[in-house]
Structure formats: C-alpha cells, structure tokens
C-alpha cells in the first residue's frame, strides 16, 4: 500500500509503516483542497497500472500505465518509467519511454532521457535533454491555420543595430 505524503524507501519500510499506522494511528480528516503527493523511492520497483487521486513522483522504477487526469505526475532524476501517462501536468527529469497525454503542461528538464510522443497544451524543454519523439500541441482548430499563414515582418522592421546580419545574397532555383 502506498502512503500519502510519505516517501517509500524500500520494502521493509512499507510493511512497517503499514502495520504501525493500522494499529496506532487514526488519520485525521484531510482538507479536500490539499494536494497530497506520493513518492515512489529509488529502491522501489513497480509493475502494473496506476490510477491515482493525488500527485505522484517516481524516483524508482516503474513499468505500467498511469491514469491521473486531475493530478500531476513526475519522473524524478533517478526515476525510470516505461508506460503511457495521462496526467494533469507532467514533469520528466529521469528516464522515460512511452507516450504522454495531458490537458496541461509537459516539462522536460535537462537531466531527462525521454523517448515517446507528447500530446499537451503546453510544453517546456530544457537545452541538453535527450529527447526522441513527437509533439502535438492541442489548440483551437483555427489556430494552426492562422499561424501557418503568419507573415514575416519586412527587414526594415528588424532592429537597426543588426544591419550586418541581413540577407546578402540569394540564389533562387525554384520552378
């Protein structure tokens, strides 16, 4: 069993925490609005799907799909995940293979080694991240068409202090 708000370091601590809490602790009711988080520690390996109602951080190893549409999912810098992820916001700092779907933001940090396809509303990627995959940004249907036809300002609109960078020579071989 995973414990809310506790970092699980290894199998023995899982058993100890579970038994202790069952015998001696009566959990106080938690406010609904409080964002709980579970961390899967470095020494934990999970195989199987997860459906969650709180934020999840993977620092260990996980193989399986994650479904937590209203909560955040994080692969920590030591984490290794293989599976499909559907979460509110997703942050990748470790290794991940699999596709990502989110209504929110995907954040890939420079420590990440990610291979998979991303469908999201927003994305941030740090320089230096290993990334092989594809990105599809969810937008209003008219947005892509409008952007594709966006015109370019004329060179006259460019900063006056960069005069040397403008086109010097053009070779047009278009049919």
């Amino acid at each position: 069993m995973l414990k809310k708000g506790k970092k699980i370091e290894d199998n023995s601590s899982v058993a100890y925490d579970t038994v202790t809490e069952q015998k001696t602790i009566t959990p106080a009711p938690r406010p609904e609005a409080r964002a709980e988080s579970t961390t899967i520690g470095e020494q934990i390996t999970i195989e199987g799907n997860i459906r969650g109602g709180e934020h999840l951080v993977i620092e260990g190893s996980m193989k399986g799909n994650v479904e937590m549409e209203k909560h955040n999912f994080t692969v920590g810098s030591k984490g290794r995940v293989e599976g499909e992820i559907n979460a509110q916001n997703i942050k990748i700092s470790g290794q991940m293979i699999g596709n990502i779907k989110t209504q929110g933001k995907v954040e890939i940090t420079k420590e990440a080694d990610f291979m998979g396809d991303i469908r999201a509303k927003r994305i941030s990627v740090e320089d230096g991240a290993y990334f092989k995959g594809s990105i599809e940004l969810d937008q209003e249907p008219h947005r892509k068409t409008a952007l594709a036809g966006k015109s370019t300002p004329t060179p006259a609109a460019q900063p006056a202090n960069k005069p040397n960078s403008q086109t010097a020579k053009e070779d047009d071989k278009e049919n």
Partner: protein
Amino acid sequence: MANPTVPVYDYSHAEPSLADYTSMLLKKYFEKLGRSSTAQVLDVGPVCEENIIFFAQRVKRFHVCDLFLRLNRNRRKGLPVNKLWEFLDYPPHRFDGINLWDFIDHLTNDEVGRLVHLCHTLLKPRGMMMITSFEKQWAPPQIHTFVMRDGFQITFRLQDHLDLPRHYYSNRILTAMLSDFQTVKSFIYRNGVREFLCRRD
C-alpha cells in the same frame, strides 16, 4: 581632428560574432509546409524549446530526434558514428520536412552522404529538407542553437554541453552532396550563415 572622448575600436582581431538575422528561407519553408494541414516535420536538434513550440504550433506533428547529443555521447564513448543512424528508424516517406540546422558541419563527408541518403528515404515525395551551414571564417568554435523567434528571426544560444569537431564544406561541395535533391532556394547572410532548402523529387 579626432574627438579624444570617442574610443577608437580595432576590429581587426575581433572574434566573429553570431549576429541575429531574419531567415528568408524559413519563411519560404513554412509557406510550403503550410499548404498541408497534416504536415509532419523532423528536427535533428539540438533540442530547443522555442523551436519545438514554433513548429508544433504550425504543423500537425513535430518530431525531434536530437542527433547532436547522441553524436556527442558516441564520440565520448568512442562509438562509431554509424550507430547514430539507428536513431533515425522512422518508416520511409514519413516526413514533409526535415530540419538539419548546422548538423552537417559536424560530420565528415561520408557521414553527410549517409545522412542525406537517409533523409531522402524518410521524406515524402516533394518533401523539403532545410539545412544551415556556416561560412568557414564565420563558424563559431562552439555549438549554438538556431533559436527561432516571431517573424522568422533567428538568435543564437550557446550549447556548451556539446563538444563536436567542425568541418567546412564549400557551396560547390554542399551542392554536390545534395545532388539527390533539387535545391529550391539558398541564402547567404552577412553573419556567415548559409541556408539551403532542398526538395525531394
């Protein structure tokens, strides 16, 4: 008589600087990609957030396979460059466009030939390949990302985690290496950047 309060600069020993510029070629590239609402484009890096967002907002699906980082890693580990091509394991005729930026400047002649052949296979008929390359005297010693801004303005960002040797190919050699393609447009800018837009027949 010269005003003594105005400093006199000597540019004769100045390092070449990477001046921003507005890419005429990218505008053309997008005009052609924009005709297809299902366009898929592949970029071989370096990974750049601004470019990802720029392209992903304008094409159906934007693919990234950062070969700069992988080439860097392979060289550090002493792995052959050929291992690099295993990452381009996409099905043939997958892409409407491929962005090579200045990646060919870090490959040998043979390696460029292999990459160009692979790109030819991966592109759809009439698909486009965009290449940038530096003029020899303007090539920066370190690797920089070509960062796309609104209005197709390009700025440069240093990638100091990458350390790759740089090669220089003249226009004549480059054109010969791209002989499987039809060169649609090419530009040379005063900051030393050369841009080539090629089309697969």
